[in-house]
């Protein structure tokens, strides 16, 4: 049995106001099931990051229907969006770690947003998560003292520590070399499989397409192809 975690129907999105108003997403229809790893790809400006931010609740959807984890995000209030964000992990192109916090404290921030977890428990979970991304010996390092790949792994730990149902990643390998990029993606893949979460990943990076269960190709705000033939198109 497969659950649909993300269901998008007839989604349009516009930027700007009045005469400058410009449509960036056209009639997007997409269903994503629990546990799937989806890679979204396409040229720059094709609207894939916009779609990702809509799914992630970073922007409010304007028209159509956007069902994420059983909640309609189209027309949701700012407060509802903020709450919805707590249910998914977001991984950015840059690691965006807080420079004044150690790796452990950074990961802990991913838990603190959820109420009612005791301090000791948060510390234990964060330490375990850092162990899982292979940074057990870097727990008390500040981001400045970590390499690019290590930082991105801390960011992954931060996104996954609260065991979100959905992980959204925007070009997580763009700032990394081939090997650390590969490591990071495989790490995401393994952890996601363990926790049974869904990954929606935006990338230009052809080297990592093989981890996807499904590939979505976008161009000029249209969802061009979905599934196997998308792979052919990219290649």
């Amino acid at each position: 049995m497969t659950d649909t975690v993300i269901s998008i129907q007839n989604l349009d999105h516009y930027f700007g106001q009045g005469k400058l108003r410009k449509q960036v997403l056209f009639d997007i229809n997409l269903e994503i099931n629990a546990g799937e790893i989806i890679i979204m790809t396409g040229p720059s400006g094709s609207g894939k990051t916009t779609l990702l931010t809509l799914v992630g609740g970073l922007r409010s959807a304007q028209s159509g229907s956007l069902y994420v984890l059983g909640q309609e995000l189209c027309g949701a209030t700012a407060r509802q969006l903020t709450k919805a964000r707590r249910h998914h992990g977001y991984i950015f192109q840059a690691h965006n770690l807080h420079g004044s916090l150690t790796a452990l404290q950074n990961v802990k921030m991913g838990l603190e947003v959820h109420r009612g977890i005791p301090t000791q428990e948060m510390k234990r979970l964060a330490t375990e998560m850092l162990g899982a991304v292979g940074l057990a010996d870097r727990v008390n390092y500040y981001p400045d003292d970590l390499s690019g790949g290590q930082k991105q792994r801390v960011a992954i730990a931060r996104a996954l520590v609260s065991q979100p149902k959905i992980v959204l990643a925007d070009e997580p390998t763009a700032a990394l070399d081939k090997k650390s990029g590969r490591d990071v993606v495989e790490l995401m893949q393994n952890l996601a499989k363990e926790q049974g979460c869904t990954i929606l990943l935006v990338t230009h990076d052809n080297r990592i397409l093989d981890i996807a269960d499904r590939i979505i190709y976008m161009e000029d705000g249209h969802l061009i192809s979905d599934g196997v033939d998308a792979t052919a198109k990219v290649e």
Partner: protein
Amino acid sequence: MIGFIKEFRRRTPLGWLQLSHEKGRLLVALSGIAFADVLMFMQLGFQTALYDSNTRLHRNLRTDIVLISPQARNLINMSTFSRRRLYQAADIPGVKSAEPMYANVVTWKNPQTRLETAVLVMGFNPDQPPFTLPEVNQQLDVIKLPDTVLFDRAARGDYQQAIAQIDAGKTVTTEIERRTITVGGLFKVGASFAADGNLITSDDNFLRLFPRRQASSVSLGLITTQPGYDPKQVAQSLKSYLGNDVKVLTHEEFVLFEENYWRVNTAIGFIFTLGVGMGFMVGVIIVYQVLSTDVNAHMKEYATFKAMGYRNFYLLGVVFEEAIILAVLGFIPGALVPLGLYHLTRNATNLPVYMTVARAVTVLIMTVIMCMISGAIATRKLQSADPADMF
């Protein structure tokens, strides 16, 4: 509420971590706040000292209730009222004694330079000494001698040699209203706005200096109450018993009466309040600079936190946390430095500048308010930490 405290306790102290991670910036911020605090402390200190210096004599009176003429304006313009009022006052239950005191400004010749200057002369019955100044009370026999006065060694002007001579036991004479006066001894109170110095003598000597003053017209009535009576209540009874030609004040009110005169009739209050305000503004600007730089530097992180589901409220909390930490930490050096400066001022000017708990609390509260205002301005920038636009 308990839930809130629980949440608070498990919260990462982000504001503190951010501040302490940037040691240099923290140091600059703290010295800025300390500077603003020092400014405020000095202005408030000077202000209080100036008021206090005008009421030193008042506060050294051994009295519970003071009677003055309704015409009285300040210590050198006391006008007079009838001594009979003092005898009447003795009728009121709770009144232990009611003693007259005479005060007037006189021009005397500086015994050292022979230049004329205005001093305040006070005369009282040496058998009922009204001052709590030990030096005066030890020399009551001296002022019983005709035309002999005690002189204020902290008077404003060139008196060093004369004081040295008196200290050496030599006789120093000078002139008041063509009478030759002997300066028989010294005490220490200090100059005020009203008079450059003070002379203390017996009531008999006072009346000799002012032949047109009569013993029956007194400048001040000093009333002591019997133990067990509340001076405020006795003063109330006196007010209703005595006529409208005297004003009844408790000792405290008498001090305030003088202070109030100088508050209204000089620009002291305005000048120093303005000084405090400027210190406050300097603080607001410095703290705002520090906080807004900090917010700008962490814009990406804040946007990330928003993307993770933290509310704007949480980030506001971080900025205000920083503001309060800065206020409290900056206040510590800001209160210590004035201790030294007050000491310096006391030595240099003889102004009674002391640190008081009340003033420290006032400045601490002002510092917190100052930092909160800066924090409130700095948080406006948080609005632009929008994760959707940043990534």
